[in-house]
C-alpha cells in the first residue's frame, strides 16, 4: 500500500512543470534527505574534509540553486528548491565552521585573573554590577547615560576582553553624547591595540608550535601575522623575518620584517645580521654592508658579521 509521501511524490512527478523527469526525481530524492544529518544532506560520508564539503556544496548548488531555473514554471518545485538550497547552505556553513575551528590556544593565563577580578568586585558590593546593568538597559534612561555606562563597562573589559570592549564602544558611539563619544574614541584605539597584542600573542604561540613541528611555512605565516597585528613586537618581526628567509618565499616581505625589527631594537645584533643576510640574497650589497658595519661597531669581533661581509665583497 502506498504511503502518504509516496503519493505526494507521485503527484509531484506528474506535475506539469518545465523540468525533465530525471531532474524532478533528483530534486525529490534530495528533498527526502533534508531531515538527516549535515553530511548526508550534502551527499557525503561523515568525517569528510573541509575541501570535500566545499566541493559537494558547490556541486549540489549547481543543481539545486533556484537561479538555475530562472523564469521557468516550477510549480511546487520552486518551494522545494528553496528548501533544499537553504538546507544545503546551512549544512555547509555548520560543517565548515566546525572543521575550520582550530583547537583553542592555551588560555590559562588569560582566564584565571579575569575570574578573580570579577570575584573581588562582587565581594565588595554584590549587586552594584547588576544594578548598573539594569539601569543601562532602562529605555527611559537618557541615551547619554547609557553611552557613558557602556564606556565604563568597556574600560573595565579593555584588558581582558578587548573585542567585547570594542563592540561596546562602537555602540556607545552610536548612542551619542559628545562626551561619551570622545571618550569612546580614545578608548577605542587602546582597545584595538590591546586586541592586536592579544591576537599577536596567539599567533606567536601558533608560530612556536609550528616551528617545533618543523613546519617552516606555518611558522613564517603565524609570525608574520603576529608582527602585523602588533607592530610594537620586535620579537615577532624578527621571527617573521627569520622564518620568511628559511621558507624562501617573497624576500621583500622578510626584508620588511627584518627592517622593522632593526628599527625597534637598534642594538639587537641578530636583527642586523638577519637583515644583512636577506639583503645579500636580494643583491642589495650596500644596505647589507651598512648593517654589518653597525654590528661590527657594537661587537668588533663578531665572526658571522665578518663572514657575511666577505660575501658582500
Amino acid at each position: 500500500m502506498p504511503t502518504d509521501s509516496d503519493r505526494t511524490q507521485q503527484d509531484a512527478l506528474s506535475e506539469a512543470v518545465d523540468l525533465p523527469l530525471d531532474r524532478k526525481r533528483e530534486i525529490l530524492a534530495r528533498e527526502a534527505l533534508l531531515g538527516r544529518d549535515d553530511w548526508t544532506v550534502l551527499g557525503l560520508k561523515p568525517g569528510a574534509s573541509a575541501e570535500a564539503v566545499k566541493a559537494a556544496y558547490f556541486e549540489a548548488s549547481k543543481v539545486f540553486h533556484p537561479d538555475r531555473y530562472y523564469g521557468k514554471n516550477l510549480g511546487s518545485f520552486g518551494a522545494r528548491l528553496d528548501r533544499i538550497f537553504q538546507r544545503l547552505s546551512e549544512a555547509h556553513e555548520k560543517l565548515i565552521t566546525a572543521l575550520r575551528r582550530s583547537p583553542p590556544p592555551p588560555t590559562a593565563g588569560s582566564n584565571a585573573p579575569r575570574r578573580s577580578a570579577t570575584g573581588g568586585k562582587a565581594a565588595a558590593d554584590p549587586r552594584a554590577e547588576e544594578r548598573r546593568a539594569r539601569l543601562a538597559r532602562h529605555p527611559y534612561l537618557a541615551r547619554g547615560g547609557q553611552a557613558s555606562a557602556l564606556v565604563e563597562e568597556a574600560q573595565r573589559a579593555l584588558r581582558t576582553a578587548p573585542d567585547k570592549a570594542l563592540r561596546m564602544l562602537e555602540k556607545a558611539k552610536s548612542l551619542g553624547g559628545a562626551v561619551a563619544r570622545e571618550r569612546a574614541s580614545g578608548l577605542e584605539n587602546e582597545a584595538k591595540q590591546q586586541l592586536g597584542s592579544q591576537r599577536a600573542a596567539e599567533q606567536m604561540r601558533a608560530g612556536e608550535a609550528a616551528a617545533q613541528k618543523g613546519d617552516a611555512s606555518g611558522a613564517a605565516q603565524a609570525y608574520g601575522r603576529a608582527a602585523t597585528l602588533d607592530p610594537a613586537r620586535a620579537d615577532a618581526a624578527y621571527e617573521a623575518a627569520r622564518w620568511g628567509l628559511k621558507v624562501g618565499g617573497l624576500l621583500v616581505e622578510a626584508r620588511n620584517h627584518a627592517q622593522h625589527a632593526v628599527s625597534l631594537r637598534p642594538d639587537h645584533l641578530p636583527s642586523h645580521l638577519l637583515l644583512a643576510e636577506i639583503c645579500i640574497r636580494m643583491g642589495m650589497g650596500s644596505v647589507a654592508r651598512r648593517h654589518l658595519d653597525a654590528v661590527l661597531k657594537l661587537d668588533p669581533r663578531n665572526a658571522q658579521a665578518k663572514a657575511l661581509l666577505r660575501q658582500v665583497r
Partner: protein
Amino acid sequence: MSEQEPVIGIDLGTTNSVVAIVQGGQPHVIRNRTGQNLTPSVVAVTNAGKRLVGQLAKRQAITNPENTVYASKRLIGRKFSSDQIRRARESLPYHIVCGEHDDVRVQLGDKAISLPEISAAVLRELKLDAEATLGRSVSKAVVTVPAYFNDGQRQATKDAGRIAGLDVLRILNEPTAAALAYGFGKQVTGKIAVFDLGGGTLDVSVLEVAKGVFDVVATGGDTYLGGEDFDNRIIEMLVMNFAKEHGVDLRKERMALQRLKDAAERAKIELSELQETNINLPFLYTPPGGTSAIHLQASLSRSKLEELTRDLVERTVEIADKVLHEAQVYPDELREIVLVGGMTRMPAVQAAVKRHFQRDPSKGVHPEEVVALGAALQADALMQPSSQVLLLDVTPQSLGVAIAGGYNRVLIPKNTTVPTSVTETFHTSRDGQTTVKIMVLQGESELAHQNELLGEFILSGLRLAPRGEVEIDVTFEINSEGIVSVSARDKETGLEQSITVTASGGLTPDELKNILEQQADSMLEARISSEVEQKRSALSSAAAEVSALIPRVRQLTGSSEFGREALRRAEEVIASARAAAQGEDLSALTDWVEQLERTRVLFVGVLERLGARPQ
C-alpha cells in the same frame, strides 16, 4: 526557436554608467552613441526645457549648474530628513527639495523630479545605446548597486528601471559583479577579495570561487565614501584659500562651485599620473559693482592631495579590515585582491591596499568596466540554462523585528546566503495583549529606531491571557530575487498575517503608476517630434534642390509666359514651405514636402525636354 531577447547588464554608477552584454559566450561593453564606453551619470534640463543625459549634460554643467544633476546615486532611496541629505544639500549646486513623504526630489526648471526618474533618464539612455548597437529592442536588464545599499535604495533603483522601460531581472551587488567578471573564464579557485572604491561608495566583498561557482562569504562597505569625497577635499581647500585671499565665499556661487568641482575632479585624476598639476579657473568670480573679475590659479601636488585625503584612505582600509574580520579571513589566505572603481587608480589607495593586504592587487581588469561586464554575465547566467556561472549571494544587512523596549532582534544576520528563511517564537509582553505589531527592520544597530523600517503589520485577535502566555511564530523569508516576506502566526489559533516587504524607494505605488502613464504620453510626444524633425530635414533639402534648379530654368524658359509663371510659383512654394518648417504641424510639413517634390519633378522634366542635363 527564435533567438532569445538580449538581456543587458548595467552598472549605474555615481559618476559614470556602463552597459554590457554577453555575446557568443563573452561579455562586451556596449559603446554609447558618441562612441564612449562610459556614459556620465548626469541629467540636465536646459533653459529651453530640453532634457539632456550623459556627455551632453555634463558638457553644459558649468553654464547651467542649477539644472544639472550629478551624483544622484548618493541621494536615491534616502529620506529627506537624513544626515546625508542635509550634508549633500550644502555642497551640491542643484536644488534638493522635500517630497510628500520625506523623500528626496530635485528641482529642475519648474518641476520637482524624483530620484528614480533621474536615474531612469540615465538607464533609458543606456537602453537606447544598447538598442542602437544591437539593432533590436531591449527590455530586460540586470542592474548593479553598491553591496551596502539597503532595501529602500534597491527598490528605488528597480523603480528607475521600470520608468526607463526595463524589466530589472535582478539587482546585483557591484563587488559581486566585479568578482564574476574577474573570475569568469579563469581557473581561479580560492578566496578573492574585491575592493571597490567608486565615485560615491566603498564596497568590500570576500568571495570563494571554484569551477564557476561564486560564493559570497562576506560583504560590507560605506555608501558615503568615494571619489566625490576626495573631490570635495580639494574644493574645500580651494574655497578656503580663495576666501583668505579675496574675502569671498565661493560656496554661495553655484556656477563657481560647479567649475571648482570639475577642476577638482580633473586635478585628482591627473595626480594619479603626475606629481603636480595646475588648477586654472579664469574669471571665476565677478564681484558686484562691475569691478574686474577674479581668477583662480593654484597648483596642487600629489603629496598635498594625499595629505588632504589621508583619513579617507585610512577609512577605506579600516572598512576592508572589518569585512575580512567578519568573514574570519586572514589577508594571507586571499588568492587575489581585485581593485574596482575609478578611485582605485589613485596611487595612495593602491599603496594602502597593498600595505593592508600585504600583496600587490591584481592587474588586468578595467576598474570602470568590470562591474557592467559582471552584470551582463549574471544576466546571461539567468537566461541560459547551459551557463556555467552560478552566484551564491548574501544579504548585505541584517533583518530583524522591533521588540519591547525599543530594541532590534536580528532574525537573519547579514552575510547569510539567500534564499533563506528563519522562524522564531515570540511572547506577548503585556497582560491581556490582543494585538501585536510586527515592525520589520534592516540594519545592524541594537536600537530599533536606528535601523531602516522596511514595513510593519498587525496581528490581532490574540487570546486574552497574562503576558508571556501567548506564543507567536514570526517567519522571515528572503527569496533568490532578494524579496523579503514576513509572516506572523498565533501558535494556538493558527491565525496568520503576512506582508511582502516592498521597501519604498521614495515613490508610492500610485506615484509610480502616474509617472509610468505620463511616460507613455511623453514617449508619444517624443515619437511625434522625431517625425516632425525628419520632415523638416526632408523639407529643407527639397527646398535647396528646387532653389538650385531655378537659375537654369530661368535661363532656358525665363522669356516665356509659362516660365515666368512657373518660377514665380516655385519661389512662393519655397518661401511658404520654409515658413511652415518653423512650425510643429506635421500634416502641413508633409504637404509642403510634396509640393516641393512636385515642383522639382516639373523643373527636371522641363530641363530634360529643353536638352539641358539636370545635375
